[in-house]
């Protein structure tokens, strides 16, 4: 039998937990301290209720500016940048993480056609030159269509530098070399920290009770396993925002909602559909860096509470879904939430959980997967076939992420015609979800 779910948000010195079971959520707050202290707090929160899972929101612990290690960046492209011009990234965060950057010949086009053979000697030279740098990020053009050059480069790096941690861009996913490379660099920088966190959280779970599974809230509103966090920590960034949206809708008892999250200085507005936050891949991530990774789509409305209230009421007026306004435990945020709720057209809902919204949302998350790829289909039938294959891949990813067998479903599936490529070129974006098997 599935037990209650705990969500826990690790923040600066404090840990906020919520237990979501049959009745109203229960909350607990304590120091973000040793494993035993955290386990004691969670056992106290459970108070004898059987716990099935603990889902951790560790996004605050994964700040690349504080927790990132230096990274050697290797870009694989068919032609090397002329004099290095145009290959730099303006983000101070990325520049600070990059201990070295190099480029080697290789890469594919969007459809997986090789544009230049991989220069293996250059890869070996880059690996050797990166000696002493703990992590490498390898990004090849066209890797979403064909990852062969990234995989070959990883193998060569491993042979030369078996101790180095390597991130490959096709694992991070997404189209656009620059954005994917940014995500891969941040991912590589966080690998060591993610491994520590995963180990720590799994141990706390074991101390909470036998059979308690450990999960991590993801930036797309889903959850990932400890295994996946170790490999792809970038997926756990911005998890608090997505979890807060999920938590607000869940507490309001609504699957589809326009959600306003009250903050001390602003209102952040997003949508929840089918219990999952709507996501985008072009929102700025840590340090303002855009990454090809889906995160909750939020628009910030700064200004006074009354200004937020007027703006949100205007949005709600044009919205077919019910409007929900929610706040966490901060007093100022609650004041803003009350002001916004007072202006909402009926039947708007106000949610004040008495604890951290993100902790409630983390407890409610389910495994998800996101696929963003390009296909060529000459006919409608062929497009449907290719789309079916992509959807099946996404469902498999959800199952691999720990979804209960048979619970996997396609949440959304879009085939977008690609401009200025030969007729029949489509970008497929598939989002899939499932229900967590708590005993995994």
């Amino acid at each position, binding site marked *: 039998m599935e037990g209650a779910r705990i969500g826990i948000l690790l923040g600066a010195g404090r840990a906020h937990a919520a237990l979501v079971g049959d009745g109203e959520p229960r909350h607990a707050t304590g120091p973000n301290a040793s494993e035993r202290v955290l386990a004691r707090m969670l056992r106290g929160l459970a108070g004898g209720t059987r716990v099935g899972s603990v889902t951790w929101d560790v996004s605050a612990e994964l700040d690349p500016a504080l927790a990132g290690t230096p990274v050697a960046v290797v870009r694989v492209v068919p032609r090397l940048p*002329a004099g290095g*011009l145009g290959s730099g990234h303006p*983000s101070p965060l990325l520049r600070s993480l990059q201990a070295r950057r190099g480029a080697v010949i290789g890469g594919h086009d*969007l459809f997986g056609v090789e544009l230049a053979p991989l220069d293996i000697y250059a890869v070996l030279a880059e690996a050797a030159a990166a000696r002493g740098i703990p992590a490498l990020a390898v990004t090849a053009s066209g890797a979403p269509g064909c990852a062969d050059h990234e995989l070959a480069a990883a193998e060569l790096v491993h042979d030369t530098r078996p101790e180095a941690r390597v991130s490959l861009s096709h694992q991070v996913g997404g189209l656009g070399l*620059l954005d994917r490379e940014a995500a891969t660099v941040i991912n590589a920088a966080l690998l060591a920290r993610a491994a520590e966190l995963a180990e720590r959280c799994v141990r706390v779970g074991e101390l909470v009770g036998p059979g308690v599974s450990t999960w991590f809230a993801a930036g797309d509103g889903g959850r990932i396993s400890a295994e996946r966090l170790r490999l792809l920590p970038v997926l756990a960034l911005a998890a608090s925002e997505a979890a807060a949206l999920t938590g607000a809708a869940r507490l309001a008892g609504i699957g589809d909602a326009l959600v306003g999250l009250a903050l001390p200085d602003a209102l952040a507005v997003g949508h929840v559909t089918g219990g999952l936050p709507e996501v985008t891949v*072009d929102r*700025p991530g840590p340090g303002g860096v855009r990454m090809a990774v889906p995160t909750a789509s939020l*628009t910030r409305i700064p200004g006074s509470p009354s200004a937020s209230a007027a703006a949100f009421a205007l949005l709600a007026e044009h919205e077919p879904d019910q409007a929900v306004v929610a706040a966490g435990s901060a007093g100022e945020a609650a004041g803003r939430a009350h002001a916004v709720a007072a202006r909402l057209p009926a039947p708007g809902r106000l949610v004040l959980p008495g604890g951290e919204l993100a902790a409630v949302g983390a407890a409610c998350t389910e495994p998800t997967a996101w696929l963003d790829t390009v296909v060529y289909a000459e006919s409608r039938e062929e497009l449907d076939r290719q789309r079916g294959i992509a959807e099946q891949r996404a469902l498999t990813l959800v199952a691999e992420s720990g979804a209960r067998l048979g619970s996997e479903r396609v949440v959304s599936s879009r085939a977008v*015609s690609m401009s200025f490529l*030969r007729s029949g070129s489509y970008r497929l974006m598939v989002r899939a979800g499932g229900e967590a098997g708590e005993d995994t």
Partner: protein
Amino acid sequence: MSERLITAADVPALLAGAEFFSTSAAGEGIDFAGVWLGDILDHTGPVRLVAAGDLDPGTACAAIGAMGSTTAMAELPPSGDEPAVLARSLEGRCGPLGAVLPLNAASVNALFPVAAAALLGLPLIDCDGMGRVFPLIHQTTFELAGLSLAPMAAVSAGYDSLLLETGSARAERLARVVAQSAGGWLLCALYPTRVGELAGAAIPGSMSRVLEVGRVLLAHAPGRPAWTGGPAHPPWESGPAPDGGPSWEGGPYREGGPGARRVVAPHERLLAELTAVTGASVLGGGRLVEIGPSVRQAAALFPGNPVGLAVHDHDSGRLIRIEAHNELILALSDGSLAAAVPDLLCLLDRGTLRMTGPGRLTAGDLVDVLVVPAAPLWHTIPGLALGGPGAFGFPLRHPKEASR
């Protein structure tokens, strides 16, 4: 002299303006070009933007523009020596270039010519040949004026290079095939001519217009990366709002002074400024109720696939149906033709206050539909023949043509 400088600080405005003039389809996902151009300008210093009249009429010049997919470009960015390859290719036929100009100041082609000018150390002429995005490289005012597209030099990100000596339509067809095989895009130098020939053949002031519109959009658009001139903090992070930050700052205001009741939303404020700057009109706005492949059979000549959109105009209750094929081509309001190419149709996302298009949109999103009048050259009979609805396979007359 009307010379001014384009610096790295202008890149955010260039990007935003380039998205606007891309007529919604081709401007999506072009931020990579801004990062690339910014890095180049940081190294080379500013580019001189000059009016054609400021240069010696005998100066050799050529239009610079990329053809192909912006998604392919984002996946396979330029290496930086493409402009030098193009200049060398043309030099043998036309002599050394003394200036460059944009093929079309929109989408990535508002940025690549700036990069070319920077890398070649040449001035950029403040004009273009489309004033928007068209799908075919010869749908230009240069063509209308009788300038020759060839010789045309082209180079891929993989360093494949070619020099075409052929007619305009043939050049388009041949280069399109090469672009597809060379990674999805080519950078081209075409319509080589003398500066004196541009009078009456080019749309003057195009780059300045892109910058002006871009500045309007930047002043309103929340959520852009910090270095593109938007808020210094991602939406969720707390922190001070930047100067001239998001238009939600201060919230909506009440129109009509004290006692007036109508609340003016941020998108309405932005629309008012955009229409004032561009001469555009707002066709309508509301919820996108339909988006998907169009049932229309498109001419094989054009890349991409036809897409149909429908917007429910909130105020009037009318249904605005939009036909897109790479860019937005025409709009029908309750079945009547309301706007069509060569005029620009642009979609504004009310949520993000950014220009948007079929690649980003899903049913349920709130958008406004703007119609921007094309340059007068496009409203001539030859202009409508080359860039009007008929050129895209629609058996319809442009509203201007119908009213003649």
